């Protein structure tokens, strides 16, 4: 083989691998990416039941009900709209009424959100950015709340 042919083999193989990688990326993008929405978006955009979503907002004060087997019912609110949600398991340490929360899961036909993961803010100074954006969109965000985000550096 000449140098030129060898180079062609090399370039050909590289392009094949890149094409495979591009294919993998595109197919994974279609199936495994989750869109983030606010409670108002869920209602206004009529998100279809069964779609995977991340909903961010505040845990509505007075909405948390703990049941048997670590069942938790609560409502996520952005001040305009409330979405009822339920979750089974241990909620994070900082999951509290009136505090920011991001829940990931599926919307059930009745409009209830079945969360399979619940994230709360990490510390007093840090608010999940999705929650901030959701609150800002509904006009409930006050600039005084925007303290410096906590450095969860590691």
């Amino acid at each position, binding site marked *: 083989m000449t140098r030129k042919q*060898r180079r062609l083999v090399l370039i050909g193989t590289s392009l094949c691998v890149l094409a495979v*990688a591009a294919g993998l990326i595109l197919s*994974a993008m279609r199936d495994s990416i989750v869109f983030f929405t606010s409670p108002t978006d869920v209602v206004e955009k009529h998100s279809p039941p069964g779609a995977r979503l991340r909903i961010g907002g505040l845990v509505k004060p007075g909405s948390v009900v703990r049941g048997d087997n*670590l069942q938790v019912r609560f409502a996520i609110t952005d001040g305009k709209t409330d979405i009822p949600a339920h979750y089974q398991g*241990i*909620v994070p340490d900082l999951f509290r009424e009136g505090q920011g929360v991001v829940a990931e899961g599926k919307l059930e036909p009745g409009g209830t959100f079945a969360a399979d993961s619940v994230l709360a803010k990490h*510390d007093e100074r840090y608010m999940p950015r999705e929650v901030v954006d959701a609150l800002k969109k509904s006009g409930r965000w006050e600039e005084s709340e925007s303290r410096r985000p906590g450095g969860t*550096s590691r």
Partner: protein
Amino acid sequence: MIAELGHYALVLALALGLIQAIAPIVGARAGDAALMRLANSTALMQFAFVAFSFAALTICYVNSDFSVANVFENSHSRMPLIYKITSVWGNHEGSMLLWVLILALFGALVAAFGSNLPATLKAYVLAVQSWIASAFYLFILLTSNPFLRLDQAPSEGRDLNPILQDPGLAIHPPLLYVGYVGFSLAFSFAIAALIEGRIDAAWARWVRPWTLAAWMFLTIGIAMGSYWAYYTLGWGGFWFWDPVENASFMPWLAGTALLHSAVVMEKRNALKIWTILLAILTFSLSLIGTFLVRSGVLTSVHAFATDPTRGVFILAILILFIGGGLTLFAWRAPMLKQGGIFAPISREGALVFNNLFLTTACLTVFVGTLYPLALEALTGDKISVGAPFFNLTFGPLFVALLFVVPFGPLLAWKRGDILGVAQRLMAAFAIGIVAVAATFAVENGQSVLAPFGVGLAFYVMAGSLIDLVERTGLFRLPLATVRMRAAGLPRSTWGTAVAHFGVAVSMLGIICAATWGSERIIALKPTQTVSISGYELSFDGIARRPGPNYESLIARFTVRHGAEVIGVMEPSKRTFSSRSMTTNEAALMTIGAGQLYLSLGDPNDDGALAIRLYYKPMVMLIWLGAVVMMLGGALSLSDRRLRVGAPKPAARSAMQAAE
């Protein structure tokens, strides 16, 4: 006073950095040896000043001098001494100071130990290293000064973020930074070679050990970070594919590729241009990682928008060095001479394959990390790209790569015999297949793919050792001969085998822990018991204990296996009043290579305590594998060729320069 001295030392370091950024280049252009030598002293002095500056900040922390804003924000007088020291880099400003400290350290190391480098190459390398350092000194001084004073000194500090008050975090960032920043030398060498327009095997002989050293630290740093996340975050995950982790993983992938391509360049004088490009890209990924973590773009777009100075400054550094590096590459690389040729099936070919797959895998991580940011910036849509994405893209590429790993070291240089190698790997194939069958027999149908993963891991383990077994004559020759032959093998051969073995060990741990782990999430009252994978835990009760700067709630569990008591687990929750935060201290019990993992949730109103209990089989192998990889790197680094072989090529290049 000491804070002001630290600040002043940093300003002096910047001044020295600016001199070193220009003088050696002028010297190299004009052939002025004195100007070139100047870089040696400035590099050493720079390091001394930055080290002084770092020590000054550390003293402020140890003395709890809350008149310094940075200390006030991140320390507390009642914190144990060790955390007072680690707080220095537990925040933005201090960690950037650590960054430049390590950058200056690497510059000083080249100045101190690079006496056998060609004078002009050394001058250029030190100059480029100083460009990077000066940019970051400026960044610290203009946007992130850790030495700012408060007008009135508060009596008490605001405490370090409690999740960072952990021994794992004491050593994780410095290790990671040595790795990250160590790649700056590869970058400096690449740029220096491009400026000179000349590159040879001696270049690779220099770059490879430095890259290897950086890679070792990065490997162990990433592993430490993963273990820290595993026991701190309280739900037993060891890798989250979150952008902060990816920020350190991408340079690791590119750096691993660089190590391998530098071998080809050193041995066969081929793949020169690619190696240069890879050196530039690896450090670029380190810079991108720094940008992601340090600009605040990840925690909150909001923070980035209201205080954009830091982010924009790092972005400018990023564009300057990556853009500049790549432009220089596009301009100068075609001038570099082509190296030796090789057939596609050969050791070189296998290393090219390695590079191709590692860089492509790196690309998928890059896309998954930056796509959400790009999409949000462009359309405002917010998405999360999580583990499923990376499992589907990174996973298959890495599996393909692993399959080829044992072939590489067995193939001959220039032109290899793939069938011959496959024959020599028969034993490894057999071991792999037996492992698949055995796993299927034991696991009773929980997963279809995982047994193949286990088989692959065993095949790679066996395959990496085959070269050693054959060359030492193990199982064939008397033991004394084997021992002699083993001692005579190049350390780099040992290093390759051990490092590849380590990759397979980690992989085995990941597959086992992820597939066959079990999980119980349950609310328990005292005296109740819970069982998992044959272990029975009984809840003895709760106690409260005060710590130095927190209150802890400790639950005590007795662990039984059968009737026998094998130990006690005491998970706890710590409440830090200074930040009104709680942290979860999981209890771990190592049983063989597996672990029982127990962490606490909230107490219910009826006195029951929610707990998370996991059994993670083989989980320790994940981190053990990383240690083995690092050991492999250390063996390779101790190779005779890298210790005593260097003066010869230096003489050769000196001759070339004289031509």
